[in-house]
């Protein structure tokens, strides 16, 4: 340091603002299947019907979710770590920033399923959907969305699907999966599946409600890693097993489901394990509501076959093993080429830009890149 010699003629380094998105991404079609949209409460409230509008001054607090700030050792990191999209203009700005062509909006912080009052949930869902129809969808056809329903009351959920499900920019129905609700595969939700079938809508099953006050499963957990890093995978497997074993896909063979934020590297074990148990212990499948109604005693296919034909997984958060062979094997064993649909989960702290899809060509060839980035979503969502 501080050498005293004449300063030679040096090239000057140029200060720049690097684009963190891989340039290949800007040349490929990208469909983001999980992007959180958070209209301001005043906007949602303006679409509320009475008597809700004059009584709900704020978004009703449904739960005291654990804030991730202690885990991340700084404030403001978590739900809206990378910003807030409250309008169509916000959404389009973020899409351009990240090289995304088409987005499927999911609700942001204002997901109301944990509110104790089902009519309030349904009213907020309707207001959210009406805001999208009136002020967001008309701005750009690049913006699609999953419509919100109160799935805690299946008839209310079905009514909302029939009210707005015809709108072509709604491509699916948003639902949470967690341990707070009976699994989404239970027959109590058939009114919702009936209505979805009428419109050919995909069920978007998004991780939510892994906190200890929702479920005894996670009682005793202390850390963000346990609650957020691990719990959604267990919940996801439970909901998917219920869908398969309780005959959802036998009654609704065209129903597609995309799981979000529940992980997926567990797929090989799940498929092998369910098939193995089915071969030895499937007698009580005849006792589930849908099979009692149809008179069937077994499933029509092996459990693993339903996963391959009816279920897809959004990719965020991708976890990439350091061993290249392991990454390639995991992708193959999880049927990633056909089952994975890119998602960013913007603006949450674990957000993934799409760059990773094109930065591992030894494991993800060009054809597979295109399928993960857009092709699989186009095949899944008939309205895209």
């Amino acid at each position, binding site marked *: 340091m501080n050498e005293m010699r004449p*300063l030679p003629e040096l090239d*000057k*380094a140029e200060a720049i603002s*690097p684009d*963190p998105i891989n340039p290949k991404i800007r040349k490929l079609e990208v469909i983001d299947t999980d992007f959180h949209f958070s209209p301001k409460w005043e906007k949602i409230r303006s679409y509320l019907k009475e008597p809700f509008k004059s009584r709900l001054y704020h978004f009703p607090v449904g739960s005291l979710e654990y804030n991730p700030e202690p885990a991340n050792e700084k404030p403001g990191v978590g739900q809206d770590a*990378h910003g807030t999209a409250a309008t169509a203009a916000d959404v389009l700005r973020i899409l351009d920033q990240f090289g995304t062509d088409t987005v499927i909006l999911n609700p942001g912080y204002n997901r109301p399923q944990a509110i104790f009052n089902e009519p309030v949930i349904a009213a907020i869902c309707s207001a959210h959907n009406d805001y999208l129809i009136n002020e967001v969808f008309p701005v750009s056809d690049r913006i699609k969305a999953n419509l919100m329903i109160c799935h805690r009351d299946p008839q209310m959920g079905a009514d909302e699907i029939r009210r707005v499900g015809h709108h072509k920019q709604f491509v699916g129905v948003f639902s949470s999966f967690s341990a707070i609700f009976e699994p989404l595969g239970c027959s109590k939700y058939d009114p919702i599946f009936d209505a979805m079938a009428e419109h050919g809508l995909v069920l978007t099953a998004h991780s939510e409600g892994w906190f200890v006050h929702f479920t005894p499963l996670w009682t005793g957990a202390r850390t963000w890693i346990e609650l957020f890093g691990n719990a959604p995978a267990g919940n996801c497997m439970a909901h998917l097993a219920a869908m398969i074993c309780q005959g959802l896909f036998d009654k609704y063979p065209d129903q597609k489901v995309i799981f979000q934020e529940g992980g997926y590297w567990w797929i090989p074990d799940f498929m092998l394990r369910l098939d193995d148990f089915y071969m030895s212990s499937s007698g009580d499948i005849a006792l589930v509501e849908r099979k009692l109604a149809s008179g069937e005693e077994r499933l029509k296919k092996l459990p693993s076959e339903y996963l391959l034909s009816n279920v897809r997984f959004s990719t965020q958060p991708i976890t990439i093993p350091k061993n290249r062979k392991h990454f390639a094997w995991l992708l193959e064993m999880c049927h990633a080429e056909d089952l994975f649909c890119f998602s960013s989960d913007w603006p949450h702290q674990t957000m993934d*830009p799409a760059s990773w899809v094109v930065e591992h060509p030894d494991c993800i060839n060009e054809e597979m890149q295109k399928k993960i980035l857009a092709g699989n979503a186009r095949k899944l969502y008939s309205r895209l």
Partner: protein
Amino acid sequence: MKEYLLGTLDDLPEGKGRAYKAGNATVAVFRRNGKVFAVANKCVHKGASLCEGELSEDGTVIRCPWHNWPFDLATGQNCLDNSERLRIYEVKMQGDQVILCA
């Protein structure tokens, strides 16, 4: 390896990072309390621009702006996983001029 002039110490923003193009390299340079460090700008995790990250109070650790990964700026090593490392670049002072070797 070639030397590039970054400017004077006061040309570098105090307490935060700035990215520079030096030949083919994109380098994030950080300055705090008289210390200057330079590392590869692209985070080894998912490619964020580290120049936009948060610099520790003592100026020795940068946290990635996307996923909060912490890196020791002197060694380039991830603070929690020895196997993850950023490329580091030498920074020299000559008088009040800051020189980057990249």
